[in-house]
């Protein structure tokens, strides 16, 4: 009887192990094929594929998937291996762990969209000390934790454009609210700062920003935050959601509650997710840049850093594949590479973009 138990136990362990191994090799599809052989590796030593890694904020974010796709395209065009990672929760804790894992894997580059501008500093500094080139994209880390930052669009332009847009929609007066991502998301916070600066202009004296709500880039939380906004401010005229998860959630709530035309919606959204709301008129128009290009540009910027074509200092220039020549510019204490101006999506052009991303 005892022997039977042992057998069962051992078999179960074996089963779990094989399952784990299967999962492992599935997930590690993008790992090099020649994983095991030590001697083989010795021969190819110097020619071994460089590994360029990207860490996004969290999984299940279509915008992030597009960025990672773009990054992968660029890295594969260059002939290297791309590692795409994202934690299941949008936390800095999880990203620190991933940075440690990438340091152990001896990657050449870590490109990161940060969940917190400061909390990653010790981990990223450790990476840079290990000779890894670190750049941030989308959501920046502080200047001490990176070599350079890839900025999707001028934050000032984004903030000001969003206020101009919502002002036009609501006819220049009434209460507006912002539905943001997490309260620490660097890019959203910068845009909101610029929105507030734009609102100081006397021509917006009749517009009141009543609240900045945080949906944490989670679908359900964004929905409940939108519902709370509508409940707390019955006279609300417009919502600005400078995050793709938030704007789609708000679009859904406004549609379900039949508030089309009563509460205006604009912000930054993915055409594929927002097409139905733009076509129905719940959101007359919105803005975005191409997230694929953000990832693509980061891939080329990463390679320029590794090859030594740029050092990340202001004034450096490099060619970013199909995007053409890009320049590194100063940004506060650090430097950045700018993709371009935000692009406007409305009923006239949404149809052609919704299938793209």
């Amino acid at each position, binding site marked *: 009887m005892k022997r039977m*138990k042992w057998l069962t136990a051992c078999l179960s362990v074996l089963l*779990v192990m094989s399952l784990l191994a299967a999962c492992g090799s599935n997930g590690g599809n993008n790992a090099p094929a020649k994983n095991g052989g030590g001697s083989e590796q010795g021969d190819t030593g110097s020619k071994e594929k460089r590994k360029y890694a990207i860490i996004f904020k969290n999984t299940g974010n279509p915008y992030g998937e597009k960025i990672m796709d773009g990054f992968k395209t660029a890295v594969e065009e260059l002939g290297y291996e791309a590692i795409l990672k994202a934690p299941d929760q949008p936390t800095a*804790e999880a990203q620190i762990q991933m940075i440690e894992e990438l340091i152990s*894997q001896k990657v050449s580059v870590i490109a990161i969209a940060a969940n*917190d501008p400061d909390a990653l500093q010790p981990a990223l500094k450790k990476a840079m000390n290990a000779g890894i080139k670190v750049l941030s994209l989308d959501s920046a880390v502080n200047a001490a934790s990176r070599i350079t930052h890839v900025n999707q669009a001028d934050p000032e332009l984004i903030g000001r454009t969003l206020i101009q847009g919502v002002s036009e929609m609501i006819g220049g007066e009434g209460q507006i609210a912002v539905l943001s991502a997490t309260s620490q998301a660097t890019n959203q916070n910068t845009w909101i700062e610029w929105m507030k600066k734009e609102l100081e202009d006397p021509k917006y004296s009749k517009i009141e920003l009543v609240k900045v709500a945080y949906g944490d880039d989670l679908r359900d939380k964004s929905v409940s935050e939108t519902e709370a906004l509508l409940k707390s401010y019955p006279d609300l005229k417009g919502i600005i959601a400078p995050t793709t998860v938030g704007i789609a959630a708000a679009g859904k709530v406004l549609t379900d509650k039949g508030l089309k035309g009563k509460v205006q919606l604009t912000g930054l959204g993915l055409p594929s997710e927002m097409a139905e709301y733009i076509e129905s008129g719940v959101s007359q128009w919105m803005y975005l840049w191409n997230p694929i290009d953000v990832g693509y540009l980061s891939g080329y910027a990463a390679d320029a850093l590794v090859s030594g074509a740029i050092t990340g200092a202001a004034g450096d220039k490099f060619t970013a594949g199909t995007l053409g020549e890009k320049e590194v510019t100063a940004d506060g204490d650090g430097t950045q590479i700018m993709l371009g101006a935000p692009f406007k999506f409305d009923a006239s052009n949404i149809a052609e973009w919704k299938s793209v991303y």
Partner: protein
Amino acid sequence: MEMRLIEGKKAFTWKGFFLQWEWMLVAIFIGINLMNMNLSEYYWDYNSLRDATMSFLDKAFIVLPMVFIIILGDIDISVASIVALSSVIMADLYNMGVPMPLAMIICLAVGAVCGLINGLLVVKFKELSAVIVTLTTMIIYRGIAYIILKDQASGGFPDWFSFFGWGYVGGIPFILIVFTVFALLFGLLLHKTVFGRSVYAMGNNITAARFSGIQTDRVKVIVFMLAGLMAAVTAIFLTSRMGSTRPNIANSYELDVIAMVVLGGISTAGGKGRMIGAIIAIFLIGFLRHGLGLVNVKAQVLMIIIGLLLVFAVMIPKLKRNKAVNKGS
């Protein structure tokens, strides 16, 4: 009613010794290490393994008292909120001008008080299960953390504070040393003291324990208070590692902690299990995550794998018991 035996009272046999769940964990642990070594050429590296412990040991401090709570047949799901609240209070006090060492002591005190409140509520409202009681305090503690920091981050700690999360003593991570000390203390407390034996007795049959003269309420309150205190220890190490804190810090840590305890062979029915099991489980899950992280397994797949391990952990003792019953009839 099902009859339960207090573990350790059975006659010692070598067969019985090696049939214990802890040996199964050791086997799985070795299996996972072999698997990881096959998966990634970077796994078997001293520095990499050493630094991996720094990533997962923060929550391990809470596992130690959680073993006591689960042996009691209770559960505490508010621990992650206690981490958040004590961390946020520490950061806020420091930024208001309180010296950092004092802020850290207050952090520990806040944790202990939160745990004390949990314990008192659990023994005062016996008709409510500990899940419900700690569910309410879980919401309340994190709510207070949000009120204090208003959804913002707080940081800017002195440089020496980063030592807790990132420092080494003689090449060994500081957090690993502190954890070893606490693990020994809690292990001794559970297995070598009257207090520990009371915990087992209460987990097996609380009424019998009370009639045999154990001050059951006092034991429970102390155990919950220890959980709060250790949550504050986690808060210090985690905050140091992050360099800043936020009200949503340590989100869903309670689930990780409970998972480690259950995988460690501590029965949620109470009265069974040993500290060493939970400690092996901490390293088992930690190294499993690290190894799969090295081959960039997707985050969701990782969750499924750990879920499967847990199902396995819960299932095996049950299978054993069924077999024993069949044999008896």
